[in-house]
């Protein structure tokens, strides 16, 4: 079949079956959102998990009479405790600098902190524990053991907050998986419906072309092309929506949940987008190919 006629057939079929084209595009868009969203969600949860696992689990505030050298000694002692991953001694000046940085990150007016001086902040030790399921219990236990130690003013275990965040992340991960599976099933259902509908829609044209002497490839090519075009358009819309919408969404969630994490926020890279387009294109071509029945030659007007 000449290219000009292939283009003619593609145009005619898109015009004749516009709702099937819209349905196919919508299904592929949903599929792209599900697949890309699942990848981004996994990345985001990992990032939040890292926040939970790697952030400070116990803060030991030291008394005013504890100097820098004594603080380092205490830190060294803590490092020897099993399950302690890291201990960082924070000087008052560093504490003030951090507070200013956090305020800037959350968009708080920095002038409110202008009156603060480093001497207002106690010297402290930040303790990170090795990540595990009993993180909050271990943090509380360590805090309990540290409170009677001379030179220790106060110990904040942060256990309840960590546990709550862990639970939310776990719950979100499970709910997200359920939602993604449900959406994947819905999009696959739409794709199957589109496939069956297009199969019946193109059956007569295929039968006519068989009778007129068109080759099997000549009959299938236009169907494959318009289905592939619909799939690429749908997949493209899905990828665009994820590219434009995911980072603002995650940023908003992190601000609301109080999660401070280092940029950049998760996004799909070029290789992933290219792979997605290639897969969508192949599925579209295959759908158009297999949705063209060539045996119904007795279907008469």
């Amino acid at each position, binding site marked *: *079949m*000449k290219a*000009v*006629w292939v283009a*003619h057939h593609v145009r*005619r079929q898109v015009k*004749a079956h516009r709702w099937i084209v819209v349905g196919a595009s919508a299904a592929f868009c949903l599929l792209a959102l599900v697949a890309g969203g699942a990848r981004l969600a996994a990345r985001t949860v990992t990032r939040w998990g890292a926040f939970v696992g790697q952030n400070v689990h116990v803060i030991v505030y030291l008394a005013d009479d504890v100097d820098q050298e004594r603080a380092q000694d205490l830190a060294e002692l803590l490092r020897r405790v099993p399950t302690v991953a890291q201990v960082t001694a924070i000087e008052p000046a560093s504490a003030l600098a951090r507070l200013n940085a956090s305020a800037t990150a959350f968009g708080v007016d920095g002038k409110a902190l202008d009156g603060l001086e480093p001497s207002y902040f106690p010297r402290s030790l930040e303790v990170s524990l090795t990540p595990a399921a009993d993180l909050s219990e271990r943090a509380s236990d360590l805090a309990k053991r540290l409170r009677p130690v001379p030179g220790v003013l106060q110990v904040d275990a942060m256990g309840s907050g960590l546990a709550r965040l862990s639970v939310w992340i776990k719950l979100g991960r499970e709910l997200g998986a359920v939602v993604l599976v449900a959406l994947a099933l819905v999009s696959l259902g739409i794709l199957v419906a589109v496939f069956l509908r297009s199969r019946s829609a193109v059956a*007569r*044209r295929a*039968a*006519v*072309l*068989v*009778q*007129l*002497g*068109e*080759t*099997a490839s*000549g009959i299938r090519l236009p169907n494959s092309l318009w289905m592939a075009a619909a799939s690429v358009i749908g997949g493209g819309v899905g990828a665009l929506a994820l590219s434009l919408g995911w980072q603002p969404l995650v940023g908003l969630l992190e601000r609301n949940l109080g999660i401070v994490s280092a940029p950049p926020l998760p996004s799909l890279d070029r290789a992933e987008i290219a792979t997605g387009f290639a897969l969508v294109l192949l599925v579209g071509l295959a759908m158009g190919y297999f949705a063209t029945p*060539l*045996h119904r*030659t007795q*279907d*008469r*007007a």
Partner: protein
Amino acid sequence: MVLDTVTLGVARSELIVIEGASASGKSTLLELAAAARMPDRGAVWFAGRNTASLQRASLPFVRRNIGYCTPDPLLLLEESSLANVMLALAVRGESPGRAEQAARDALALVRASELEGRKVATLSSGQKRLVALARAVAGPPPLVVADEPAAGVGDEAREIVARALTAARDSGAGVLAATADTALAEMLVQRGGRRIHLDQGRIAGAPAMGLVPAFTPSPVSAERAQPGVITLEDDGDDESTLQPATRGPT
């Protein structure tokens, strides 16, 4: 329907009118000629090739050279009459411009120019048959096979059908038309058509009409060579039959 010991040739610029009662095997014979069915035994020669022995993938290249018009035409209902006629020419590889002109000419030949822009779904069954006839003779292809071409088109359209078939013949096509309509058959015979009567799957009064070679003569048919486009022949076994094949056309 069973065909028995049928040997028939159609030459270029030849018009053959097959008459016969209902269920005499006319439609089966035409389906075999149009490569819409494959015989269980025997051969169907077209352009030097036995279509009965061709691989399925090769059949489209035979079919596209045959304008096949059935009593119950297969048309694209949501397309215009013009688009339906153009489709046959597109399959043959004509350019869109030439295909459109040839399609308009064919529709004019069957006096259906006013139907050009109308969707086939809106046409009467008689109008659909005229569009199908126009599609069959458009070009024209080397062979036109018309099964009951005047059925349902009305008495006044008989003349149109006869004119279209003879025009295709005059343009160099071999024309094989089957009809139970004696008036149409008479018209075609008066215009130079050769009449053949089919009775219970056999050609009445003539056990063999002579083998006609295709464009490239085959060893079998070269002995009785005369220019032609299609040959249907029995395989020489007295008890053999040409039966509708169960094999699909593709």
